[in-house]
């Protein structure tokens, strides 16, 4: 089924939300600046509500079902978080209000910084980055500035494992670095021999995701970090997969220098159909003054009668501002609430159940699917979505068929180092019953692949639209709907 666009629904002369007439004398706008026409839709409030409600029903969501999109940590988003951020004291505060009038916000940010530091083992956290990729940019620019201040600017090379997210190499080249891909060994770890040959005096740093995108714990993590440090480089930790490490390992303890957090993955802030994310960055002591500001500090400690007083700090060698104001405060407040509800044991429980779920599901799924790196996984695992005996079936067909069974497909065709990859991350909030049902669907699809392959090729059959012509979309490029003259 399809839904008309807001412009197709528009009826000339209809109006939705309107405003009072001006209560002040009229001042004419200089004619040379006045716009002739602005064609916006003309709809009633109910038209708008029906339209977007209809659209919402065309979406798959976590609230609607199992969403094992690998590397995205599609866990349940607690409803209380949504209620909290709409409190007028939080939602209706202006970023430039006098700091005496926003002490509650600064308290939340200060505590969140402290808690993220404790959880990760880093010395200082800046909350300003808007998303994981921006956190990475912070990291790469810190590496750059660190070497410059140490009068070592010839270090222009960043090593990136071949299993890494595309954001890692993209970030590095945005930061003016040369990107050198690092191969993985047969156990899915960074190939140590290859790493050693690149550890020279042009090495700026390494970007390492741990657990990596295969869902595997980097078995030589300490050796890898030591090698880079010994060569004078810094190690950036991509925190995309931190959900597996809460209360299990603090990346700062094993020597990572910098890491971003994805509040929208690990700390349950909603993914919003593609954002907003939030990507705070933690660093070791020697890098604290390179962070982007502002950082919230306690200006005066409180006592029995007066609460502490908070304010902003702009680090001395800061790489600079990443965006206007202070980051995605609405996401900070949700992450604060999430951590406050869990406490130390609760956080460890998250990682434990995420890893339990992934290993349980992996054990079941590998009965029918090739598992290229067969060892205990962390929070996710990657199988091949293809079989030698039915070469015409691809990961895409399996993904589309899963929709008919009522599931969101896993991430497909990533990581690039696995043939026809299906990357499955169940998260800790899913029950055994859901995992069993998903495993059963995958098993049924494996059978269909042999017995009725056309069912897979033609899938999905039950979705609002069928397979879409992506080639046409790119060739005929229609990026804007019909707008009446």
């Amino acid at each position, binding site marked *: *089924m399809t839904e008309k666009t807001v412009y197709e629904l528009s009826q000339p002369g209809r*109006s*939705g*939300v309107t*405003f009072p007439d001006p209560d002040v*004398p009229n001042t004419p*706008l200089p004619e*040379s*600046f006045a716009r002739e026409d602005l064609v*916006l839709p*003309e709809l009633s*409030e109910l038209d*708008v*509500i029906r339209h977007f409600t209809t659209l919402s029903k*065309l*979406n798959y969501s976590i609230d609607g079902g199992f969403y094992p999109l690998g590397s995205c940590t599609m866990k349940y988003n607690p409803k209380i978080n949504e209620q*909290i951020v709409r409190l*007028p004291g*939080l939602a209706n505060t202006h*970023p*430039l*209000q*006098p700091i005496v009038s926003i002490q*509650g916000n600064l308290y939340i940010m200060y505590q969140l910084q402290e808690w993220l530091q*404790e959880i990760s083992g880093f010395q200082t956290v800046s909350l300003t980055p808007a*998303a994981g*990729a921006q956190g990475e940019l912070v990291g790469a620019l810190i590496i*750059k500035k660190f070497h410059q201040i140490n009068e070592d600017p010839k270090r222009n090379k960043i090593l990136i494992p071949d299993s890494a997210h*595309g954001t890692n*190499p993209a970030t590095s080249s945005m930061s003016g*670095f040369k990107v050198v891909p690092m191969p993985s060994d047969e156990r899915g770890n960074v190939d140590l021999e290859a790493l050693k040959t690149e550890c020279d005096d042009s090495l700026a740093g390494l970007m390492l995701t741990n657990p990596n995108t295969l869902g595997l714990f980097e078995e030589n993590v300490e050796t890898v970090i030591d090698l880079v440090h010994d060569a004078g480089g810094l190690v950036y930790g991509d925190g995309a997969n931190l959900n597996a490490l809460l209360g299990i390992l*603090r990346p700062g303890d094993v020597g990572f220098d910098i890491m971003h957090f994805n509040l929208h993955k690990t700390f349950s802030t*909603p993914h*919003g159909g*593609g954002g*907003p994310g939030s990507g705070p960055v933690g660093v070791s002591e020697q890098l604290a003054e390179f962070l982007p500001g502002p950082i919230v500090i306690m200006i005066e400690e409180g006592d029995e009668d007066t609460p502490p007083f908070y304010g902003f700090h702009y680090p001395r060698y800061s790489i*600079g*501002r*990443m*965006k*206007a104001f202070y980051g995605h*405060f*609405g996401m900070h407040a949700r992450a604060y609430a999430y951590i*406050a*509800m869990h*406490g130390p044991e*609760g956080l460890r429980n998250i990682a434990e159940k995420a890893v*339990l779920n992934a290993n349980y599901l992996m*054990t079941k799924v590998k009965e029918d699917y090739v598992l290229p790196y067969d060892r205990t996984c962390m929070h996710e695992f990657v199988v091949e979505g293809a079989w030698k005996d039915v070469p015409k079936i691809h990961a895409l067909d399996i993904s589309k068929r899963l929709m008919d069974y009522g599931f969101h*497909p896993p991430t497909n065709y990533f990581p690039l180092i696995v043939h026809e990859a299906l990357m499955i991350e169940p998260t800790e*909030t899913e029950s055994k019953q859901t995992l069993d049902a998903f495993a059963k669907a995958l098993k049924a699809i494996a059978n269909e692949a042999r017995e009725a392959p056309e069912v897979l090729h033609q899938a999905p059959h039950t*979705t609002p*639209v069928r397979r*879409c*012509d992506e080639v046409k*979309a790119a060739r005929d*490029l*229609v990026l*804007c709907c019909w*707008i009446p003259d």
Partner: protein
Amino acid sequence: MFTPHTKNEIKEMLKVIGVDTIEDLFEKVPEKHRFPELDLPEPLTEMELAVELNEISSANAPADDFISFLGAGAYNHYIPAAVDMLLRRGEFYTAYTPYQPEISQGTLQSIFEFQSLMTELTGMDVSNASHYDGATAAAEAANLAYHFFRGKRNKILVTRAVHPQYRETIRTYMYGLEDVVVFGDEEQAGFSPDLQNTLDQIDNNTALVVVQYPDFFGRILDYTKLIEIAHARGALVCMVFNPTALGLLKPPGEFDVDIAVGDGQPLGIPLSFGGPYLGIFTIKEKYVRKLAGRLVGETVDEEGQRAYVLTLTAREQHIRREKSTSNICTNQGLMALAATVYLSLLGKKGFKQVANLCYQKAHYAAQKISKLEGFELAFPDTPFFHEFVIKTPKPVFEMNFHLQNHWVLGGYDLNQAYPELEHHMLVAVTEKISKQDIDDFVLALQEVTND
């Protein structure tokens, strides 16, 4: 609490995996550092948390407790109830990037409608699905221009009347590209409305000129000549706009700019202490293959039904990796939805009303304040939209401190970002401010001056 596992289920699952305990799954984690004791407070139940957050929230004074004249990049507009009701639908906010179009048509069509509304609003050809905020959108414009010229033009020229935090963000983004210089906004450059200083600096090495409309001081300047000269010298022009102002003003597209960016926060997004907001990024069609970020395109499905998909993905980091121009991945999906719903609800009539109310009330306020003894407009001869600068008889921070006692949130103290603008207040007026509020503000200004 959010994990559903019963003891029996855990036992069964461990048995299937073939290990005895959950701890066994973590053997590869270095033992010395495994299972750290985290020094965090004991957990709160939902009920306790709700109480605590209410207390924290009441340690703030929300803008609506005051009569607020604070803007400077974040504006206190009225948000119709229907916007948030729709945003709260789990089908929208608990979905992710619509990689699988068959089950993401809701998100895809709403982004497509967002793109359409943004091109209509700006008069530009193409809008992407969003950037983080106005500042990062401006920085991505610099990035686009740099890559458009393949690094052969290395100057990014910004005027001093562009939002100071946007200028800082552009500098941060350009820091990694060592040959790029960002300049033109030094104190001596000033902010004369004839833009002569900026015009003089555009040369054959200029990749991009960044201007703001209305500018940071609320002024509506005529950029026609600047744009002509920039184009004559081969440079691109990026206009930073305020979306509400475009309800009345000639859109960036009519000025023939190459890139128009803005912050969509005024379009139905709460102040939320500075974020999350919405970066709007629009371009002329010829730059589409250099455009960063997600794009939704229209197509058909196998049965010929209209459908929407993410398109031109070969530009993006997950395909091009180190060869992509930007690393952006997650953007501001839900905020783009808010703006789409807001503009649909207000529509042709309501949106123009809001823009006009802002304009009229701001002008009434400016006129009243300029008549106060000791106060004057800093740019009396330049048209403005809904923000204006007044010279004050006392330091602004001091006045604002006392204004709080009158439950007035005074305007932005320009001295914070402009050393040369002592005693200069940037006053913003939205449709939420009544004539009475303005009269009260004028009275309060008089009182705190006389204190």
